[in-house]
């Protein structure tokens, strides 16, 4: 199966292990990711917080590129990019005047027919039996907290994905690895997002609450599908432990890394050594747990 692929800027830099694990895992599962040629940034928070037209035009340029390159759907693993694309599409559909202005800006026809697929939806499309058949390790007894954050599920009227307050789709994917998703309270709470540099204290407070709640509910790792959530929970955990000597490290894994582990892919190819919070406790636990194949 072929599908368009828009990695987004984070996946070429700070979240390169997310890109690496995605390419590795989907190639293993027989999915051909066709990277959108000459893709550009979606504008992220900085565009929508300062210039509405810009925030719609930047995704629109990529949508029209996808159309020209014959792609019907694009897989966007970054939850923040995913959100900007679905919102831009929605706004152009609802407001023909806006669409016309955007078309003048991009000097192309704006396309709102391209399907946008997020990380969890990608795994939902793959035959469960195939994942189970390819599984090399059963991550049995591994308790994890599925963290959705903000931008996968909100605003639900636009993303039309799962439930805004109590989503469960990521847990269904996690269960395929044998890992056990815990019941917890902070799966859709905000990590502080783009305040990481300008208001670091906001991020440290919000991220600490998320990590603490996951730990209190027995999670040994948090599973994410967003590079911004990952950087706040993983990299900023360094700052959290500096402030709180009692803090116990919580590994933060991308959903694609977790699936990759169960497929038996090694640490290097999944980029697990590139995290700031040590992933070794997870790795050492499953280094030998090979699934018994009947």
């Amino acid at each position, binding site marked *: 199966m072929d599908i368009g692929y828009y990695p987004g800027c984070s996946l070429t830099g700070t*979240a*390169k292990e997310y890109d690496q694990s995605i390419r590795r895992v989907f190639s293993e599962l027989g999915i051909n990711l066709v990277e959108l040629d000459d893709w550009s940034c979606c504008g992220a928070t900085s565009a929508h917080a300062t210039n509405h*037209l*810009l925030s719609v035009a930047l995704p629109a340029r990529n949508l029209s590129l996808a159309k020209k390159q014959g792609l019907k759907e694009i897989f966007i693993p970054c939850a923040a990019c995913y959100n900007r694309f679905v919102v831009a599409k929605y706004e152009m559909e609802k407001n023909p005047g806006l669409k016309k202005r955007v078309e003048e800006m991009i000097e192309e026809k704006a396309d709102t027919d391209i399907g946008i697929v997020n990380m969890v939806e990608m795994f939902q499309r793959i035959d469960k039996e195939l994942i189970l058949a390819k599984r090399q390790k059963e991550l049995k007894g591994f308790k994890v907290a599925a963290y959705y954050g903000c931008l996968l599920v909100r605003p639900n009227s636009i993303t039309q994905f799962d439930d805004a307050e109590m989503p469960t789709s990521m847990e269904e994917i996690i269960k395929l690895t044998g890992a056990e998703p815990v019941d917890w309270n902070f799966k859709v709470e905000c990590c502080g997002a783009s*305040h990481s*540099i300008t208001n670091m204290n906001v991020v440290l407070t919000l991220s600490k609450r998320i990590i603490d709640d996951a730990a209190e509910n027995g999670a040994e790792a948090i599973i994410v599908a967003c590079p911004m959530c990952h950087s706040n929970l993983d990299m900023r955990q360094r700052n959290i432990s500096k402030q709180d000597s009692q803090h116990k490290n919580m590994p933060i894994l991308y959903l694609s890394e977790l699936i990759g582990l169960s497929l038996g892919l090694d640490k290097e190819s999944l980029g697990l050594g590139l995290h700031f919070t040590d992933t070794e406790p997870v790795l050492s636990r499953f280094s030998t747990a090979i699934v018994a194949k009947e």
Partner: protein
Amino acid sequence: MSSHSNAKHKERMTLADEIEELTGINPLKCYQCGKCSAGCPVRIFMKVSPNKVVRLVQLGLDDEALKSETIWMCAGCLTCSTRCPQNFDLAKFMDALKEIAIKKGVITRKDILKFHKAFLKQIEANGKAFEFGLIRDYKLATFNLFQDMDIAPEMFFKGKIKLFPHKIKNRDAIKKIFDKANKE
């Protein structure tokens, strides 16, 4: 939209009118139940709660609304927009207030605007984000030189930060988008 460029018309507009023109949201739609502020994760860091900013706009206290730090503290998590019983997209309303505040030059959190500008400068030049350039420009603009000096070298050695930007081919297209967006 023909009135958009009419400067005289704009002078007579209230902030509520400007927000409605920019977003289609009528600020009077909010009946002040406060559900947005109850669920706002950043509320504890704000002096003025999000629903109060809407109230300021409703009462015509335009300057106070534009000057409130709240509009800059909004993380854009969309919890309020999702839960509002009136389907009032408060996160979008906060973005509109920032956009108008920038045009009027009323900037309460200059550091946050400098961050956004440094980010967008890289997109405009390269078509993609470039963290090294972003952090360099942001630090120079805010004199916040020492934050994250411990993390930066590790980012570099892990290959997560590059010293040179990756440029897309069709940078002209991006330049045109920025030029037109800034002209509005």
